[in-house]
Protein backbone atom coordinates (compact mmCIF):
# COMPACT_ATOMS: atom_id res chain seq x y z
CA UNK A 1 0.00 0.00 0.00
CA UNK A 2 1.26 3.44 -0.88
CA UNK A 3 1.60 5.76 2.11
CA UNK A 4 -0.30 8.95 1.32
CA UNK A 5 1.04 12.50 1.76
CA UNK A 6 4.73 11.74 2.29
CA UNK A 7 5.71 14.82 0.30
CA UNK A 8 2.67 16.98 -0.36
CA UNK A 9 0.87 18.48 2.61
CA UNK A 10 -2.49 16.99 3.43
CA UNK A 11 -5.09 19.68 2.70
CA UNK A 12 -6.94 19.56 6.02
CA UNK A 13 -3.88 19.51 8.32
CA UNK A 14 -1.57 21.54 6.08
CA UNK A 15 1.28 19.12 6.89
CA UNK A 16 2.74 16.04 5.30
CA UNK A 17 1.71 13.07 7.41
CA UNK A 18 5.11 12.22 8.85
CA UNK A 19 5.49 15.72 10.25
CA UNK A 20 2.15 15.63 12.02
CA UNK A 21 3.07 12.16 13.26
CA UNK A 22 6.39 13.27 14.71
CA UNK A 23 4.79 16.30 16.41
CA UNK A 24 2.21 14.05 18.05
CA UNK A 25 5.02 11.72 19.12
CA UNK A 26 6.91 14.68 20.55
CA UNK A 27 3.79 15.71 22.46
CA UNK A 28 3.74 12.26 24.07
CA UNK A 29 7.45 12.65 24.82
CA UNK A 30 6.74 15.96 26.54
CA UNK A 31 4.35 14.02 28.77
CA UNK A 32 6.95 11.36 29.52
CA UNK A 33 9.76 13.75 30.39
CA UNK A 34 7.28 16.18 31.96
CA UNK A 35 6.26 13.51 34.44
CA UNK A 36 9.89 12.91 35.38
CA UNK A 37 10.67 16.63 35.56
CA UNK A 38 7.72 17.28 37.86
CA UNK A 39 8.71 14.27 39.99
CA UNK A 40 12.18 15.73 40.27
CA UNK A 41 10.87 19.14 41.28
CA UNK A 42 8.45 17.58 43.77
CA UNK A 43 11.19 15.50 45.37
CA UNK A 44 13.64 18.39 45.35
CA UNK A 45 11.19 20.78 47.01
CA UNK A 46 10.11 18.16 49.54
CA UNK A 47 13.64 17.11 50.49
CA UNK A 48 14.76 17.84 54.05
CA UNK A 49 17.55 20.46 53.89
CA UNK A 50 20.89 18.70 54.03
CA UNK A 51 19.84 15.52 52.20
CA UNK A 52 19.95 16.60 48.54
CA UNK A 53 23.44 16.17 47.07
CA UNK A 54 23.36 19.22 44.83
CA UNK A 55 27.05 20.02 44.81
CA UNK A 56 28.37 16.72 43.46
CA UNK A 57 28.03 17.40 39.75
CA UNK A 58 30.96 18.59 37.69
CA UNK A 59 29.39 21.65 36.07
CA UNK A 60 32.20 22.06 33.51
CA UNK A 61 31.68 18.55 32.17
CA UNK A 62 27.93 19.20 32.09
CA UNK A 63 28.38 22.47 30.22
CA UNK A 64 30.77 20.83 27.75
CA UNK A 65 28.26 18.07 27.09
CA UNK A 66 25.49 20.64 26.65
CA UNK A 67 27.52 22.40 23.96
CA UNK A 68 28.29 19.12 22.22
CA UNK A 69 24.56 18.42 22.03
CA UNK A 70 23.79 21.97 20.86
CA UNK A 71 26.38 21.56 18.10
CA UNK A 72 24.85 18.26 16.99
CA UNK A 73 21.43 19.90 16.93
CA UNK A 74 22.79 22.63 14.67
CA UNK A 75 24.60 20.14 12.41
CA UNK A 76 21.46 18.09 11.76
CA UNK A 77 19.54 21.15 10.60
CA UNK A 78 22.48 22.13 8.36
CA UNK A 79 22.47 18.60 6.93
CA UNK A 80 18.78 19.07 6.11
CA UNK A 81 19.51 22.45 4.45
CA UNK A 82 22.12 20.72 2.24
CA UNK A 83 19.52 18.16 1.16
CA UNK A 84 17.10 20.97 0.32
CA UNK A 85 19.77 22.29 -2.06
CA UNK A 86 20.19 18.81 -3.57
CA UNK A 87 23.70 18.36 -2.17
CA UNK A 88 24.08 14.78 -0.90
CA UNK A 89 27.82 15.12 -0.18
CA UNK A 90 27.18 18.14 2.03
CA UNK A 91 24.42 16.25 3.82
CA UNK A 92 26.80 13.37 4.54
CA UNK A 93 29.44 15.73 5.92
CA UNK A 94 27.08 17.40 8.41
CA UNK A 95 25.40 14.11 9.27
CA UNK A 96 28.70 12.50 10.25
CA UNK A 97 29.44 15.56 12.38
CA UNK A 98 26.05 15.11 14.08
CA UNK A 99 26.73 11.43 14.75
CA UNK A 100 30.22 12.22 16.09
CA UNK A 101 28.76 14.76 18.56
CA UNK A 102 26.07 12.33 19.70
CA UNK A 103 28.66 9.59 20.25
CA UNK A 104 30.93 11.98 22.13
CA UNK A 105 28.03 12.93 24.41
CA UNK A 106 27.36 9.28 25.24
CA UNK A 107 31.05 8.46 25.70
CA UNK A 108 31.42 11.24 28.28
CA UNK A 109 28.38 9.90 30.13
CA UNK A 110 29.31 6.27 29.80
CA UNK A 111 33.01 6.36 30.55
CA UNK A 112 33.33 9.38 32.81
CA UNK A 113 30.22 10.82 34.47
CA UNK A 114 28.49 7.62 35.57
CA UNK A 115 31.47 5.33 36.31
CA UNK A 116 33.24 7.86 38.56
CA UNK A 117 30.06 7.97 40.64
CA UNK A 118 29.88 4.19 40.86
CA UNK A 119 33.37 4.15 42.40
CA UNK A 120 32.60 6.79 45.00
CA UNK A 121 31.28 5.66 48.38
CA UNK A 122 29.34 7.00 51.32
CA UNK A 123 29.83 5.10 54.57
CA UNK A 124 27.48 5.64 57.49
CA UNK A 125 28.69 4.48 60.90
CA UNK A 126 26.53 3.12 63.68
CA UNK A 127 28.37 4.97 66.43
CA UNK A 128 28.57 8.75 66.65
CA UNK A 129 31.72 8.61 68.76
CA UNK A 130 33.42 6.47 66.14
CA UNK A 131 32.29 8.84 63.36
CA UNK A 132 33.82 11.85 65.11
CA UNK A 133 37.02 9.89 65.68
CA UNK A 134 37.28 8.89 62.00
CA UNK A 135 36.59 12.42 60.76
CA UNK A 136 39.23 13.78 63.13
CA UNK A 137 41.70 11.14 61.87
CA UNK A 138 40.93 11.81 58.26
CA UNK A 139 40.81 15.57 58.30
CA UNK A 140 42.97 16.94 61.12
CA UNK A 141 46.06 17.40 58.93
CA UNK A 142 44.33 19.11 56.06
CA UNK A 143 42.16 21.12 58.47
CA UNK A 144 45.22 22.47 60.26
CA UNK A 145 46.82 23.40 56.96
CA UNK A 146 43.60 25.04 55.84
CA UNK A 147 43.33 26.98 59.10
CA UNK A 148 46.93 28.18 58.84
CA UNK A 149 46.37 29.41 55.31
CA UNK A 150 43.15 31.23 56.14
CA UNK A 151 44.86 32.63 59.24
CA UNK A 152 47.51 34.17 57.02
CA UNK A 153 44.76 35.82 55.09
CA UNK A 154 43.63 37.37 58.33
CA UNK A 155 40.49 35.29 58.84
CA UNK A 156 39.41 33.79 62.11
CA UNK A 157 40.88 30.29 62.29
CA UNK A 158 38.54 29.04 65.01
CA UNK A 159 39.43 27.11 68.12
CA UNK A 160 41.97 24.34 67.72
CA UNK A 161 39.79 21.50 69.07
CA UNK A 162 37.08 21.86 66.46
CA UNK A 163 39.32 22.33 63.42
CA UNK A 164 38.37 19.06 61.72
CA UNK A 165 34.68 19.58 62.48
CA UNK A 166 34.89 23.11 61.12
CA UNK A 167 36.64 21.89 57.98
CA UNK A 168 34.11 19.10 57.39
CA UNK A 169 31.24 21.54 57.74
CA UNK A 170 32.77 24.18 55.49
CA UNK A 171 34.46 22.18 52.75
CA UNK A 172 32.41 18.99 52.59
CA UNK A 173 28.93 19.20 54.07
CA UNK A 174 27.99 22.75 53.06
CA UNK A 175 29.46 22.52 49.57
CA UNK A 176 27.72 19.23 48.87
CA UNK A 177 24.27 19.96 50.27
CA UNK A 178 23.95 23.77 50.27
CA UNK A 179 26.76 25.17 48.09
CA UNK A 180 26.87 28.32 50.22
CA UNK A 181 26.96 28.56 54.04
CA UNK A 182 23.79 29.84 55.69
CA UNK A 183 21.85 29.50 58.92
CA UNK A 184 20.07 26.47 57.49
CA UNK A 185 23.29 24.76 56.49
CA UNK A 186 24.73 25.33 59.96
CA UNK A 187 21.64 23.89 61.64
CA UNK A 188 21.52 20.86 59.31
CA UNK A 189 25.20 20.17 59.89
CA UNK A 190 24.82 20.32 63.65
CA UNK A 191 21.99 17.79 63.52
CA UNK A 192 23.97 15.48 61.22
CA UNK A 193 27.04 15.80 63.44
CA UNK A 194 25.18 15.16 66.71
CA UNK A 195 23.04 12.30 65.43
CA UNK A 196 25.82 10.68 63.43
CA UNK A 197 23.89 10.74 60.15
CA UNK A 198 26.92 12.32 58.48
CA UNK A 199 28.59 9.95 56.04
CA UNK A 200 32.26 9.32 55.45
CA UNK A 201 32.59 10.06 51.76
CA UNK A 202 35.46 8.88 49.60
CA UNK A 203 37.09 6.07 47.69
CA UNK A 204 37.79 2.55 48.93
CA UNK A 205 41.47 1.90 48.27
CA UNK A 206 41.85 -1.51 49.83
CA UNK A 207 40.23 -3.83 52.33
CA UNK A 208 41.03 -6.73 54.61
CA UNK A 209 39.24 -9.84 53.41
CA UNK A 210 38.79 -13.09 55.32
CA UNK A 211 40.91 -16.17 54.62
CA UNK A 212 38.57 -19.01 55.21
CA UNK A 213 39.09 -22.51 56.64
CA UNK A 214 36.60 -25.01 55.26
CA UNK A 215 35.85 -27.84 57.66
CA UNK A 216 33.75 -30.95 57.08
CA UNK A 217 31.53 -31.52 60.06
CA UNK A 218 29.38 -34.40 58.91
CA UNK A 219 27.78 -36.39 56.09
CA UNK A 220 24.20 -37.46 55.70
CA UNK A 221 23.80 -40.89 54.12
CA UNK A 222 20.12 -40.18 53.30
CA UNK A 223 20.87 -37.22 51.00
CA UNK A 224 20.58 -39.48 47.95
CA UNK A 225 24.27 -39.52 47.08
CA UNK A 226 26.26 -42.76 47.32
CA UNK A 227 29.39 -42.99 49.47
CA UNK A 228 31.58 -43.42 46.42
CA UNK A 229 30.15 -40.36 44.68
CA UNK A 230 30.43 -38.26 47.81
CA UNK A 231 34.08 -39.21 48.20
CA UNK A 232 34.73 -38.44 44.54
CA UNK A 233 33.30 -34.97 45.06
CA UNK A 234 35.54 -34.52 48.07
CA UNK A 235 38.59 -35.59 46.09
CA UNK A 236 37.74 -33.03 43.44
CA UNK A 237 38.27 -30.29 45.99
CA UNK A 238 41.70 -31.57 47.00
CA UNK A 239 41.00 -33.87 49.95
CA UNK A 240 43.96 -36.12 50.77
CA UNK A 241 41.95 -38.97 52.28
CA UNK A 242 38.30 -38.65 51.19
CA UNK A 243 37.04 -41.74 53.01
CA UNK A 244 38.44 -40.61 56.35
CA UNK A 245 37.19 -37.06 55.88
CA UNK A 246 33.70 -38.30 55.09
CA UNK A 247 33.50 -40.55 58.12
CA UNK A 248 35.26 -38.44 60.75
CA UNK A 249 35.16 -34.93 59.34
CA UNK A 250 38.07 -32.53 59.53
CA UNK A 251 39.79 -29.69 57.74
CA UNK A 252 39.33 -29.72 53.97
CA UNK A 253 40.76 -26.39 52.80
CA UNK A 254 42.94 -23.98 54.71
CA UNK A 255 43.06 -20.22 54.25
CA UNK A 256 41.19 -20.16 51.00
CA UNK A 257 39.48 -17.14 49.53
CA UNK A 258 35.80 -16.32 49.77
CA UNK A 259 34.77 -17.39 46.27
CA UNK A 260 36.39 -20.83 46.54
CA UNK A 261 34.94 -21.42 49.99
CA UNK A 262 31.43 -20.57 48.82
CA UNK A 263 31.76 -22.76 45.73
CA UNK A 264 32.95 -25.71 47.83
CA UNK A 265 30.18 -25.16 50.38
CA UNK A 266 27.57 -25.32 47.65
CA UNK A 267 28.98 -28.33 45.77
CA UNK A 268 29.56 -30.41 48.91
CA UNK A 269 26.18 -29.38 50.30
CA UNK A 270 24.66 -30.98 47.21
CA UNK A 271 26.58 -34.19 47.99
CA UNK A 272 25.14 -34.41 51.52
CA UNK A 273 27.97 -32.85 53.53
CA UNK A 274 27.54 -30.30 56.26
CA UNK A 275 30.35 -27.78 56.41
CA UNK A 276 31.60 -25.22 58.86
CA UNK A 277 33.31 -22.14 57.48
CA UNK A 278 35.61 -20.28 59.81
CA UNK A 279 37.83 -17.26 59.46
CA UNK A 280 41.49 -18.17 59.85
CA UNK A 281 42.85 -14.69 59.33
CA UNK A 282 42.60 -11.60 57.19
CA UNK A 283 44.63 -10.53 54.18
CA UNK A 284 44.78 -7.07 52.68
CA UNK A 285 43.63 -6.70 49.10
CA UNK A 286 43.83 -3.64 46.93
CA UNK A 287 40.81 -2.93 44.77
CA UNK A 288 42.77 -3.47 41.56
CA UNK A 289 43.53 -7.07 42.47
CA UNK A 290 41.73 -9.83 40.65
CA UNK A 291 38.61 -11.02 42.38
CA UNK A 292 37.99 -7.70 44.05
CA UNK A 293 34.33 -6.73 44.03
CA UNK A 294 33.33 -4.08 41.51
CA UNK A 295 30.64 -2.57 43.67
CA UNK A 296 30.69 -3.12 47.42
CA UNK A 297 27.43 -3.26 49.26
CA UNK A 298 26.67 -3.34 52.98
CA UNK A 299 25.55 -6.97 52.93
CA UNK A 300 28.63 -8.16 51.08
CA UNK A 301 31.01 -6.37 53.38
CA UNK A 302 29.33 -7.49 56.57
CA UNK A 303 28.50 -11.07 55.53
CA UNK A 304 28.81 -13.39 58.51
CA UNK A 305 31.34 -16.22 58.19
CA UNK A 306 31.48 -18.43 61.25
CA UNK A 307 30.73 -15.48 63.50
CA UNK A 308 33.12 -13.04 61.86
CA UNK A 309 32.63 -10.57 58.99
CA UNK A 310 33.83 -11.30 55.47
CA UNK A 311 35.65 -7.97 55.44
CA UNK A 312 37.25 -6.84 58.69
CA UNK A 313 38.05 -3.30 57.66
CA UNK A 314 38.19 -1.05 54.65
CA UNK A 315 40.82 1.56 53.90
CA UNK A 316 39.19 4.74 52.68
CA UNK A 317 40.70 7.91 51.30
CA UNK A 318 38.23 10.65 52.17
CA UNK A 319 37.26 13.46 49.80
CA UNK A 320 39.23 16.70 50.14
CA UNK A 321 41.68 15.18 52.60
CA UNK A 322 44.60 15.05 50.15
CA UNK A 323 44.35 11.24 49.89
CA UNK A 324 44.85 10.75 53.60
CA UNK A 325 43.82 7.14 54.26
CA UNK A 326 41.83 5.99 57.24
CA UNK A 327 40.81 2.51 58.34
CA UNK A 328 37.13 1.82 59.04
CA UNK A 329 36.23 -1.40 60.90
CA UNK A 330 33.29 -3.29 59.48
CA UNK A 331 31.65 -3.68 62.89
CA UNK A 332 31.08 0.09 62.96
CA UNK A 333 29.54 0.28 59.49
CA UNK A 334 25.79 0.79 59.43
CA UNK A 335 25.44 1.29 55.70
CA UNK A 336 27.79 1.54 52.76
CA UNK A 337 26.75 2.61 49.29
CA UNK A 338 28.36 3.81 46.11
CA UNK A 339 26.71 6.74 44.30
CA UNK A 340 24.40 4.30 42.57
CA UNK A 341 20.63 4.65 42.06
CA UNK A 342 19.74 3.13 45.43
CA UNK A 343 22.08 5.48 47.31
CA UNK A 344 19.44 8.17 47.76
CA UNK A 345 16.40 9.79 46.21
CA UNK A 346 18.64 12.24 44.39
CA UNK A 347 20.68 9.54 42.66
CA UNK A 348 17.55 7.49 41.98
CA UNK A 349 15.92 10.23 39.92
CA UNK A 350 19.26 11.45 38.54
CA UNK A 351 20.00 8.11 36.90
CA UNK A 352 16.39 7.67 35.77
CA UNK A 353 16.25 11.00 33.93
CA UNK A 354 19.78 11.04 32.50
CA UNK A 355 19.45 7.35 31.61
CA UNK A 356 16.20 7.89 29.72
CA UNK A 357 17.71 10.87 27.93
CA UNK A 358 20.82 8.85 27.03
CA UNK A 359 18.54 6.11 25.68
CA UNK A 360 16.98 8.73 23.38
CA UNK A 361 20.42 9.83 22.19
CA UNK A 362 21.34 6.20 21.56
CA UNK A 363 18.14 5.60 19.58
CA UNK A 364 18.87 8.74 17.58
CA UNK A 365 22.35 7.48 16.70
CA UNK A 366 20.87 4.23 15.36
CA UNK A 367 18.37 6.10 13.16
CA UNK A 368 21.11 8.46 11.91
CA UNK A 369 23.35 5.52 10.99
CA UNK A 370 20.44 3.91 9.15
CA UNK A 371 20.01 7.09 7.13
CA UNK A 372 23.71 6.97 6.19
CA UNK A 373 23.72 3.34 5.04
CA UNK A 374 22.92 2.39 1.41
CA UNK A 375 19.55 0.97 2.50
CA UNK A 376 18.55 4.33 3.99
CA UNK A 377 20.09 6.38 1.19
CA UNK A 378 18.20 4.39 -1.47
CA UNK A 379 15.22 6.59 -0.61
CA UNK A 380 17.21 9.61 -1.83
CA UNK A 381 17.71 8.02 -5.22
CA UNK A 382 14.02 7.05 -5.47
CA UNK A 383 12.33 10.14 -4.09
CA UNK A 384 14.48 13.11 -3.10
CA UNK A 385 11.78 15.16 -1.45
CA UNK A 386 10.57 12.28 0.64
CA UNK A 387 14.09 11.60 1.90
CA UNK A 388 14.55 15.29 2.73
CA UNK A 389 11.30 15.21 4.69
CA UNK A 390 12.46 12.09 6.49
CA UNK A 391 15.61 13.90 7.62
CA UNK A 392 13.51 16.89 8.66
CA UNK A 393 11.28 14.74 10.86
CA UNK A 394 14.32 13.05 12.38
CA UNK A 395 15.73 16.53 12.98
CA UNK A 396 12.56 17.46 14.89
CA UNK A 397 13.10 14.47 17.20
CA UNK A 398 16.77 15.34 17.58
CA UNK A 399 16.00 18.95 18.51
CA UNK A 400 13.58 17.65 21.12
CA UNK A 401 16.34 15.51 22.66
CA UNK A 402 18.48 18.66 22.72
CA UNK A 403 15.59 20.60 24.31
CA UNK A 404 15.26 18.06 27.11
CA UNK A 405 18.95 18.41 27.85
CA UNK A 406 18.73 22.22 27.78
CA UNK A 407 16.28 21.95 30.70
CA UNK A 408 18.09 19.06 32.38
CA UNK A 409 21.37 20.92 32.54
CA UNK A 410 20.32 23.73 34.92
CA UNK A 411 18.04 21.43 36.91
CA UNK A 412 20.61 18.70 37.57
CA UNK A 413 23.80 20.72 37.69
CA UNK A 414 22.69 23.94 39.37
CA UNK A 415 19.55 23.33 41.42
Amino acid at each position, binding site marked *: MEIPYTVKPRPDTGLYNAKLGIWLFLASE*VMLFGALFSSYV*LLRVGAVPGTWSMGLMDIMVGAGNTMVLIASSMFI*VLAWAQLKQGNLAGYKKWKWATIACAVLFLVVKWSYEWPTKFKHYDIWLSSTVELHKKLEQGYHLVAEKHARESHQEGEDAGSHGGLAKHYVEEEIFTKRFFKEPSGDSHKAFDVAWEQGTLALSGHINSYEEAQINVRISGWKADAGVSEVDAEKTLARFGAGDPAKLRKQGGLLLEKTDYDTAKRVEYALGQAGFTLALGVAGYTEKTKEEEGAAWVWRTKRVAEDIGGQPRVRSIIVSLDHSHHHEIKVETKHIKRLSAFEPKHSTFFGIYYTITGLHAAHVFGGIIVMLYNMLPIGLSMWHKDRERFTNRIETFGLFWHFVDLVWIFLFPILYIL
Partner: protein
Amino acid sequence: MGDSHDSPDFLQYLIRLFYMVGGVLVAGTLITVLIDVLFAFPLPVAALIGLLIALVKAGFVVAVFMHYKWDKKLIMITWTMVLTFIFFAGMMGLIMWAEGDHPQVRENILYRDELSAFWIVAAALFGLALPVSFTVLTIKQLSQPAPVEAAAPSAKRAAKKTKR
Protein backbone atom coordinates in the same frame (compact mmCIF):
# COMPACT_ATOMS: atom_id res chain seq x y z
CA MET B 1 7.83 24.28 5.83
CA GLY B 2 5.47 25.65 3.31
CA ASP B 3 6.32 25.43 -0.38
CA SER B 4 6.80 29.20 -0.64
CA HIS B 5 9.89 28.93 1.56
CA ASP B 6 11.87 26.61 -0.70
CA SER B 7 13.65 29.30 -2.70
CA PRO B 8 17.49 29.21 -2.67
CA ASP B 9 17.68 32.73 -1.22
CA PHE B 10 15.48 31.79 1.67
CA LEU B 11 17.60 28.69 2.32
CA GLN B 12 20.77 30.79 2.46
CA TYR B 13 19.01 33.11 4.91
CA LEU B 14 17.98 30.05 6.98
CA ILE B 15 21.52 28.66 7.09
CA ARG B 16 22.85 32.00 8.36
CA LEU B 17 20.09 31.93 10.97
CA PHE B 18 21.04 28.39 12.04
CA TYR B 19 24.62 29.46 12.74
CA MET B 20 23.41 32.48 14.69
CA VAL B 21 21.06 30.40 16.82
CA GLY B 22 23.89 27.92 17.46
CA GLY B 23 25.95 30.85 18.75
CA VAL B 24 23.09 32.07 20.94
CA LEU B 25 22.68 28.61 22.48
CA VAL B 26 26.39 28.30 23.28
CA ALA B 27 26.35 31.80 24.77
CA GLY B 28 23.33 30.88 26.90
CA THR B 29 25.14 27.83 28.26
CA LEU B 30 28.24 29.89 29.06
CA ILE B 31 26.14 32.51 30.85
CA THR B 32 24.46 29.80 32.94
CA VAL B 33 27.85 28.41 33.97
CA LEU B 34 29.34 31.85 34.65
CA ILE B 35 26.43 32.86 36.86
CA ASP B 36 26.78 29.63 38.82
CA VAL B 37 30.54 29.97 39.24
CA LEU B 38 30.79 33.72 39.87
CA PHE B 39 27.72 34.53 41.95
CA ALA B 40 26.23 32.90 45.01
CA PHE B 41 22.50 33.41 44.54
CA PRO B 42 20.09 31.71 46.92
CA LEU B 43 18.56 28.55 45.50
CA PRO B 44 15.19 29.94 44.28
CA VAL B 45 16.90 32.82 42.45
CA ALA B 46 19.53 30.53 40.92
CA ALA B 47 16.78 28.15 39.82
CA LEU B 48 14.76 30.98 38.31
CA ILE B 49 17.73 32.39 36.37
CA GLY B 50 18.81 28.95 35.15
CA LEU B 51 15.32 28.02 34.01
CA LEU B 52 14.71 31.40 32.34
CA ILE B 53 17.90 31.05 30.30
CA ALA B 54 16.88 27.48 29.46
CA LEU B 55 13.48 28.78 28.38
CA VAL B 56 15.04 31.35 26.05
CA LYS B 57 17.34 28.69 24.56
CA ALA B 58 14.39 26.34 24.13
CA GLY B 59 12.45 29.12 22.41
CA PHE B 60 15.22 29.58 19.84
CA VAL B 61 15.49 25.84 19.19
CA VAL B 62 11.75 25.46 18.66
CA ALA B 63 11.34 28.64 16.59
CA VAL B 64 14.32 28.24 14.25
CA PHE B 65 15.75 24.70 14.36
CA MET B 66 12.28 23.16 14.40
CA HIS B 67 11.01 25.75 11.86
CA TYR B 68 8.11 26.59 14.12
CA LYS B 69 8.42 30.28 13.20
CA TRP B 70 7.34 29.42 9.66
CA ASP B 71 5.00 26.57 10.64
CA LYS B 72 2.90 28.43 13.16
CA LYS B 73 0.01 28.95 10.82
CA LEU B 74 -0.33 25.16 10.89
CA ILE B 75 -2.98 24.94 13.50
CA MET B 76 -2.48 21.23 14.25
CA ILE B 77 1.06 21.66 15.58
CA THR B 78 0.12 24.69 17.61
CA TRP B 79 -2.86 22.98 19.18
CA THR B 80 -0.92 19.84 19.96
CA MET B 81 1.91 21.63 21.69
CA VAL B 82 -0.18 24.28 23.45
CA LEU B 83 -2.56 21.66 24.85
CA THR B 84 0.34 19.46 25.91
CA PHE B 85 1.85 22.39 27.75
CA ILE B 86 -1.45 23.21 29.45
CA PHE B 87 -1.82 19.58 30.49
CA PHE B 88 1.69 19.58 31.88
CA ALA B 89 1.10 22.87 33.71
CA GLY B 90 -2.08 21.42 35.20
CA MET B 91 -0.25 18.35 36.46
CA MET B 92 2.48 20.54 37.95
CA GLY B 93 -0.23 22.69 39.51
CA LEU B 94 -1.78 19.68 41.23
CA ILE B 95 1.63 18.55 42.45
CA MET B 96 2.63 21.95 43.77
CA TRP B 97 -0.75 22.31 45.43
CA ALA B 98 -0.30 18.96 47.18
CA GLU B 99 3.25 19.92 48.13
CA GLY B 100 2.13 23.28 49.53
CA ASP B 101 -0.42 21.64 51.79
CA HIS B 102 1.90 20.13 54.41
CA PRO B 103 0.58 20.71 57.91
CA GLN B 104 3.10 22.68 59.92
CA VAL B 105 3.78 22.75 63.62
CA ARG B 106 4.39 26.25 64.97
CA GLU B 107 4.68 26.75 68.72
CA ASN B 108 3.15 23.33 69.34
CA ILE B 109 0.01 24.11 67.35
CA LEU B 110 -0.72 22.26 64.13
CA TYR B 111 -1.43 24.71 61.32
CA ARG B 112 -2.74 23.88 57.90
CA ASP B 113 -2.29 26.51 55.22
CA GLU B 114 -5.75 26.71 53.76
CA LEU B 115 -5.75 26.95 49.98
CA SER B 116 -8.85 28.27 48.34
CA ALA B 117 -10.85 25.73 46.37
CA PHE B 118 -10.40 27.92 43.28
CA TRP B 119 -6.79 26.82 42.75
CA ILE B 120 -7.65 23.16 43.15
CA VAL B 121 -10.43 23.38 40.57
CA ALA B 122 -8.26 25.48 38.25
CA ALA B 123 -5.41 22.96 38.37
CA ALA B 124 -7.79 20.07 37.76
CA LEU B 125 -9.36 21.88 34.77
CA PHE B 126 -5.90 22.62 33.39
CA GLY B 127 -5.00 18.96 33.70
CA LEU B 128 -8.18 17.93 31.91
CA ALA B 129 -7.64 20.43 29.07
CA LEU B 130 -5.64 18.11 26.83
CA PRO B 131 -7.79 14.97 26.77
CA VAL B 132 -11.06 16.94 26.55
CA SER B 133 -9.88 19.34 23.83
CA PHE B 134 -8.39 16.51 21.79
CA THR B 135 -11.63 14.59 21.95
CA VAL B 136 -13.60 17.66 20.89
CA LEU B 137 -11.14 18.49 18.08
CA THR B 138 -11.16 14.92 16.78
CA ILE B 139 -14.94 14.77 16.74
CA LYS B 140 -15.05 18.12 14.94
CA GLN B 141 -12.46 16.92 12.42
CA LEU B 142 -14.30 13.66 11.75
CA SER B 143 -17.67 15.32 11.34
CA GLN B 144 -16.35 17.59 8.56
CA PRO B 145 -16.83 16.49 4.96
CA ALA B 146 -13.78 14.72 3.53
CA PRO B 147 -11.32 17.10 1.80
CA VAL B 148 -11.40 17.14 -1.97
CA GLU B 149 -7.91 15.73 -2.57
CA ALA B 150 -8.29 12.96 -0.06
CA ALA B 151 -11.44 11.82 -1.79
CA ALA B 152 -9.82 11.85 -5.23
CA PRO B 153 -8.72 8.18 -5.51
CA SER B 154 -12.11 6.80 -4.53
CA ALA B 155 -13.80 9.26 -6.90
CA LYS B 156 -11.61 7.99 -9.75
CA ARG B 157 -12.51 4.43 -8.86
CA ALA B 158 -16.18 5.33 -8.85
CA ALA B 159 -15.78 7.00 -12.23
CA LYS B 160 -14.13 3.85 -13.63
CA LYS B 161 -16.95 1.71 -12.29
CA THR B 162 -19.59 3.85 -13.97
CA LYS B 163 -17.67 3.63 -17.30
CA ARG B 164 -17.81 -0.15 -17.16
